């Protein structure tokens, strides 16, 4: 079968970090194409290129073998390419019908006045196409997440009205927030619509991808590393391809991984947050890295946010250095000696336009106060000292953090917690958005922190990184711990083994 939409040798990088390199992908008529890969493999970037919201640095798109230039999402829509977003793109304060025809109201308008009755009728027809029975005048905020997903799909299908050709609909992780029954419904709709449209389906859940797709592309580090017919490959095999290179102990500085101390810094028993996760027992020793593995929705993110004080626990016990502690705000976490290194450095990690020095002392201004006022000389010297100790590449402690590279920004966040005397560090995707070199530096730092007796609770983008860095790996699924693995030096568990407990 010939390609309908094709990406040819697409490359795209963000500030020097390549996100896609020479990617070739094609979508054939009436086909569901699966796209899998770990976080950061380039799936979302590729989808955005196909949807016209990112322009590639090099390479081209073709539609029916003719070159296709997309300047924005509207261009893509004109050519029958629509995207259903991972974070839904519906406006919750508008009605379902208004959302379905958002931006296309002109067809219902006469002399600038919209005929709502006609729009509602048309929207109802769209929803009927996918067999969904929702009152189109409902405020979108009143719908369930799954119902909204259906509305998104209906919205994408309105493209049919403006183009003669078959549609290409991009589904970016549509199932990550859905329950099993809703997933089945979505899949049934997709199958029913295959005669009229092709789909590109992105998901973390391999079984799902195999179930719905005709063909699967595997991405890794911004490249397409494999292409398989869905009936000729198994989930474990796909996973092997997806995580690629076996464990590279060198990369994760495994030789520097020392056994943890005896002191227990953080202990939880039966820790839970209602309806999100439950019965989490973990022990974090001095010098230990505990990694939590799990897919989106497994509850691992929430466990770290609970320890960081964002998500108050509702069940169980948490104790810090043997003392039972209730942490209901980030401030209390800081006081208890827990430092949270967030994934969104730009929003949660640093005040970007303030200096390195100010950012470092933010969590512990006391150490530079003398006689009730800030001693700038002491603050500056302190920052110079941290810059040296953590090898932060910066010409001076006075420059704004926004001028640092991602890896160095991450080091400034770590310096803040070390300066605040935090003994427990929560690393929330610490290497997200960093290039390979910067990642290695962060790994080096993790080893040094362990050597100093810090306890580290880690969640990371890749299984490989979690296993490589951790002493102990906990696997979570559906809000519960399903397995524990010893991952100390020389005894690293196999990824496939972990995966079995994840999905």
């Amino acid at each position, binding site marked *: 079968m010939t390609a309908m939409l094709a990406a040819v040798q697409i490359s795209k990088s963000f500030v020097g970090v390549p996100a896609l390199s020479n990617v070739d992908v094609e979508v054939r008529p009436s086909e569901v194409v699966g796209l899998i890969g770990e976080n950061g493999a380039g799936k979302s970037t590729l989808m955005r290129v196909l949807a016209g919201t990112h322009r590639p640095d090099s390479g081209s798109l073709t539609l029916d073998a003719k070159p296709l230039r997309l300047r924005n999402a509207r261009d893509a829509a004109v050519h029958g390419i629509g995207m259903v977003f991972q974070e839904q793109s519906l406006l919750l304060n508008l009605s379902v019908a208004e959302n379905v025809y958002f931006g296309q109201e002109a067809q219902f308008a006469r002399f600038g006045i919209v005929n709502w009755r006609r729009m509602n009728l048309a929207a109802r027809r769209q929803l009927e196409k996918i067999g969904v029975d929702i009152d189109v005048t409902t405020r979108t905020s009143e719908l369930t997440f799954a119902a909204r997903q259906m509305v998104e799909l209906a919205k994408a299908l309105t493209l049919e009205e403006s183009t003669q050709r078959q549609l290409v609909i991009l589904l970016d992780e549509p199932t990550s927030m859905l329950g099993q029954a809703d997933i089945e419904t979505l899949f049934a709709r997709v199958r029913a619509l295959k005669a009229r449209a092709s789909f590109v389906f992105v998901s973390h859940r391999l079984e799902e991808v195999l179930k719905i797709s005709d063909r699967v592309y595997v991405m890794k580090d911004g490249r397409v590393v494999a292409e398989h017919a869905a009936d000729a490959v198994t989930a474990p095999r796909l996973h092997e391809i997806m995580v690629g290179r076996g464990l590279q102990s060198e990369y994760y500085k495994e030789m520097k991984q020392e056994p943890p101390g005896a002191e227990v810094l953080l202990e939880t028993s039966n820790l839970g947050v209602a309806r999100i996760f439950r019965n989490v027992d973990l022990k974090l020793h001095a010098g230990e890295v505990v990694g939590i593995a799990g897919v989106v929705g497994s509850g691992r993110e929430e466990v770290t946010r609970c320890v960081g004080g964002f998500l108050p626990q509702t069940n169980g016990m948490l104790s810090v250095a043997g003392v039972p502690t209730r942490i209901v705000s980030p401030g209390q976490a800081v006081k208890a000696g827990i430092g949270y290194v967030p994934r969104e450095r730009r929003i949660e990690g640093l005040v970007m336009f303030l200096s390195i020095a100010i950012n470092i002392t933010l969590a512990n*201004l006391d150490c530079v106060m003398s006689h009730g006022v800030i001693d700038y000389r002491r603050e500056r010297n302190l920052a110079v000292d941290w810059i040296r100790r953590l090898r932060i590449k910066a010409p001076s402690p006075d420059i704004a953090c926004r001028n640092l590279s991602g890896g160095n920004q991450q080091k400034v966040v770590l310096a803040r917690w070390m300066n605040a005397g935090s003994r427990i560090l929560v690393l929330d995707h610490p290497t997200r958005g960093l290039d390979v070199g910067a990642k290695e530096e962060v790994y080096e730092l993790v080893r040094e922190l362990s050597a100093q007796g810090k306890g580290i609770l880690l969640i990371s983008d890749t299984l490989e990184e979690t296993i490589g860095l951790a002493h102990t790996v906990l696997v979570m699924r559906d809000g519960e711990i399903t397995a524990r693995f010893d991952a100390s030096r020389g005894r690293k568990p196999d990824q496939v083994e972990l995966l079995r407990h994840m999905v």
Partner: protein
Amino acid sequence: MAYALFPMNGRVRLMTFNANRVDSRPPLKPPSDIASRPRGVALSSMASHRWRALAPLFVLVVLAALISVANPNFLEVRNLIRIANSASVPLTLAMGTTFIILLGSIDLSVEGAVSLSAMVLVLLAANNLNDNNYGWAAVAAAVAASTVMGLASGVIQTMLRIPSFMATLGTWFIGLGFSVFMLGGSAVRLVDPALRGLALSRFLGLPFAVWIAAAAFAFAVVIQYYTRVGRHIVAVGGGEDVAELSGINLVRVRIAAFGLAGFFYGIAGVLAAAQLGQSDAVIGDGRMFAAVTAVVVGGTSLTGGEGGVVNTLIGVIIVTVLSNGMILLGISPYVQQTAQGLMIIAAVALTLDRTRLKIVK
């Protein structure tokens, strides 16, 4: 990018907060927050940061030059003292407003606080309405009243989770209404000679009010740059999430900032009453506009975190020089008002780094 007074190695000097200082040093990796923008845009916006930093000073110099060419009397010592005197109340007010805007909030209660403070002063000090004569205690009570009103604005915002815009709109009218009620709608004269002296007597050739405003400025500088609360205000304004994650108590910082602002408004109210020799309901009229204009013209970012009280000093001088100049040039008061309106819009257009603002609400 805003410049700021930044003390270092025991000295106090002006420096910019951004990359321009490192031009002569080894190149840094490009900042990651421009990831989704083409490089050219980022570089040009960095160059424009430097321009922005110096814009307020530049405006002041050009303005002064133009006015003195048109009317050489402008540069006479007598006129400069007049400028300083008329800048004293706006400067004191704007110190308070600066902290609020640094926080990324807005304070509309300025006029209510000024009239409250002036009312308390004239009714407790020697006046022509009652027999009170508490002297300096009246000053303390006036400042305290305004401070309490500021704290109340902070509490209302944080406890009831009402945006600062609405909370202070409310306290503005509460303060105003209360003082109109107490004054009975008439002007009450302040007759305490010592308190009148705040405005009338001079020290080293300058009216006492100018010294008080200078002291308020110095106090604000110390607060912003040398104290925990000042640092926390800047941090919350720059990134609320970061501040919270770092263990900063956001509620406390907000309440403190509004209380601090109320303190400055209280002093300004005392000065205003002393200058006028009386207080009535409209003593605060037009003062919020002047204060907010001064802060914004000085280059403090409305989105919070950038700029500060030193910027505001320059902003206040610009605003005062402009109105003084227009008076010298004999421009109609209505045109003057229009000019000030244009200025605040121009100032926001020049100082706000709109490339970072995705949505304008």
